[in-house]
């Protein structure tokens, strides 16, 4: 067991950081204020290969391993959590496709996703029913060689700019293990409509809308996996997504720690930089403890998934830990920086607004704990 980053991971981390310092961080605040979708940044990322880091080489991606992916995602999140989330949701779509798609589907979609020419997304939640799939109503009725879909999905990230989405739908009215399918839904399918855009408190430049499907025709070739296999599959994808969402939280936390520490080293009160005062030092130490712990959990969860071990506890734990760590880090950073932190001249107020989402997205912390309780009951 080796805790050190491999030489390759160090190099990729450095490259990602160099790219983020040049192209992501300088405009992050601007995009956040204007709420404009960062098309230019994503285009640059596409050219440099970021959009295809988890796409296998034979489909035009870089085929990097899971841990290297985590390192790159953390760097993106440190510069701009919004970019990291847009990128992450795109990768969720790619990951699901790689794991459960047919060769034909991979050939059809992966090359475009790898270059960023197409942006991916993922639909699970429904507005009325939140997280329990048993209550979902979005329904795909099987006809001979296609499906007709009616229903809606809520809070979809990359809803405006995205072109292909992995959508989780019910195929039978009764609940059961085989009542669900996942489909690749393309934006130009007739019957697909995008609702108005939500204004969120954080991740302001990300586009989040509801989707409405009215008699939307989905061809048989776009079904992912076997008939009725949707539930098990989406469970695995969600675990994968949770671990990496945790990584985004770690990136936000790291950015907060950096800002707070730098500030504390220079802010001089009564002749001393405030970092010398014990209460400030304690805050920074606690920030580090929580962020590093969350990082370890996220890396372990990601490693488990890559090695075929079911991360039933670890991915949830990683997201919960990261969500709490980054929120606490953001609050402490704001307090350490005082009025300066509270103003928008510094990025900490953006970190503060972004951080809360980590605990809430992909299943709020409370649900995670309930599920973890059930899992612990079985394991211990």
């Amino acid at each position, binding site marked *: 067991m080796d805790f050190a980053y491999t030489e*390759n991971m*160090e*190099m*990729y981390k*450095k*490259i*990602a950081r*160099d*790219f983020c310092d*040049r192209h992501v961080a300088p405009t992050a605040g601007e995009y956040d204020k204007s709420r404009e979708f960062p098309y230019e940044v994503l285009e640059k990322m596409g050219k*440099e*290969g*970021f959009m295809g*880091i988890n796409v296998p080489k034979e489909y035009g991606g*870089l*085929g*990097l391993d899971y841990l290297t992916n985590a390192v*790159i995602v953390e760097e993106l999140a440190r510069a701009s959590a919004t970019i990291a989330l847009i990128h992450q949701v795109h990768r969720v779509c790619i990951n699901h496709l790689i794991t459960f798609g047919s060769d034909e589907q991979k050939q059809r979609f992966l090359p475009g996703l790898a270059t960023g020419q197409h942006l991916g997304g993922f639909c699970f939640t429904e507005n009325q029913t939140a997280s329990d799939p048993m209550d979902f109503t979005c329904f795909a009725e099987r006809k001979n060689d296609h499906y007709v879909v009616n229903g809606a999905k809520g809070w979809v990230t990359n809803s405006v700019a995205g072109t292909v989405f992995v959508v989780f739908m019910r195929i039978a009215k009764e609940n059961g293990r085989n009542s669900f399918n996942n489909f690749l839904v393309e934006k130009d399918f007739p019957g697909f409509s995008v609702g108005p855009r939500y204004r969120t408190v954080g991740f302001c430049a990300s586009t989040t809308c509801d989707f409405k499907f009215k008699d939307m025709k989905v061809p048989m070739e776009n079904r992912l996996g076997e008939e009725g296999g949707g539930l098990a599959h989406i469970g695995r994808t969600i675990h994968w997504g949770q671990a990496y969402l945790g990584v985004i939280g770690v990136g936000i936390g790291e950015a907060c720690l950096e800002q707070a520490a730098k500030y504390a080293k220079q802010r001089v009160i009564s002749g001393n930089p405030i970092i010398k005062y014990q209460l400030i030092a304690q805050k920074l130490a606690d920030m580090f403890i929580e962020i590093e712990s969350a990082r370890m959990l996220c890396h372990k969860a990601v490693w488990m998934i890559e090695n075929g071990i079911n991360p039933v506890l670890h991915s949830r734990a990683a997201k919960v830990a990261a969500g709490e760590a980054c929120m606490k880090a953001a609050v402490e950073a704001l307090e350490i920086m005082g009025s300066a932190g509270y103003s928008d001249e510094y990025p900490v107020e953006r970190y503060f607004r972004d951080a809360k989402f980590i605990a809430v997205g992909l299943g709020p912390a409370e649900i995670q704990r309930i599920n973890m309780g059930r899992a612990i009951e079985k394991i211990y």
Partner: protein
Amino acid sequence: MVSEKTGTSLNIVVYLKLEKDYQAYAEVDQSTCEGCGICAKICPFEVPSMRVDETVEILPEKCRGCGACVPYCKTNSIRMQYTLNNEPYSSTELVSVGLRNPLDKNAIEAGLALRDELGGKVWVLAEGSPRFEESLREALVMGADEGILLCDPKFMGSDHLASSFIIEGALNNLGGCDLLIAPQRTSCGEPLFCVAWVAERLGMTYMPFVRSIEPGGGGVLVRRKWGEKMLELSVSLPAALTVERGINKPRGLSLMAAARVMGKTVSRWSSEDLDFGGNRIGEAGSQVRLRMVEALPKRRRKKRKRGEILKGSPEVLAGTLIERLKEWQIL
């Protein structure tokens, strides 16, 4: 690789002069150290620290290797060390991964840009400790074709002239080159002297302080300042150039290049691999020899007091400032 456009192919070597200063460290013989602490007072970088047993400790990673402390030790307990495990030493803390000297990237970019336009191959060459391999790998990720590290304790102690024999040996090993490019200055010395000697002996056209390079004029066209004018010169190949800041904007590191380069290794050449043409290297080949260093008296950090704050019309304020500038001998 021959350029499709121009049908040419240039062999370009970029020579990087990486951190030479931190390639030695002071070692304290604890058995003879009396713990007087004079070395700590002398060291301009505040490296020596007192241990619990009241002897002095100097951490190799933090030491700059200047040797200023050595003559002051009353018990002669400090010795300078230049190698570690039989390889040239460099501080793990002070010599960080990557291309720290900003002009290094400019020099590499100049080579890459010419190769992209005229076809050919870019080698990146550096001399020093094994840790510099990481810098050369970064050059590979930028897009260079091969990296070569000249690494051998025998190279140490070389002044600019002796270093030029080493570089010449490396170039001969490569079968010569069309263009040798180096950064104009680094934080620990000016490569332009080394490059001048190499150019002279290998019959290359020498041009330092270059601010732009373009193909043309039967070789390359370069620009450099001359007083208040900018000269454009045609330089015949083979040529040896040192590049100034502002010559170009180095390309960033790219993920895709990293993925391509991951399998590659940096070659390592020692003195056995090179033919110095009978010249001597190391101290024996050097014509200048560092004899001693002395620390300057330490600078105390000033506590600033609020000075004179003035209000008034813009004319009055500007006028007062002019008077101050004259008092301060700026004007």
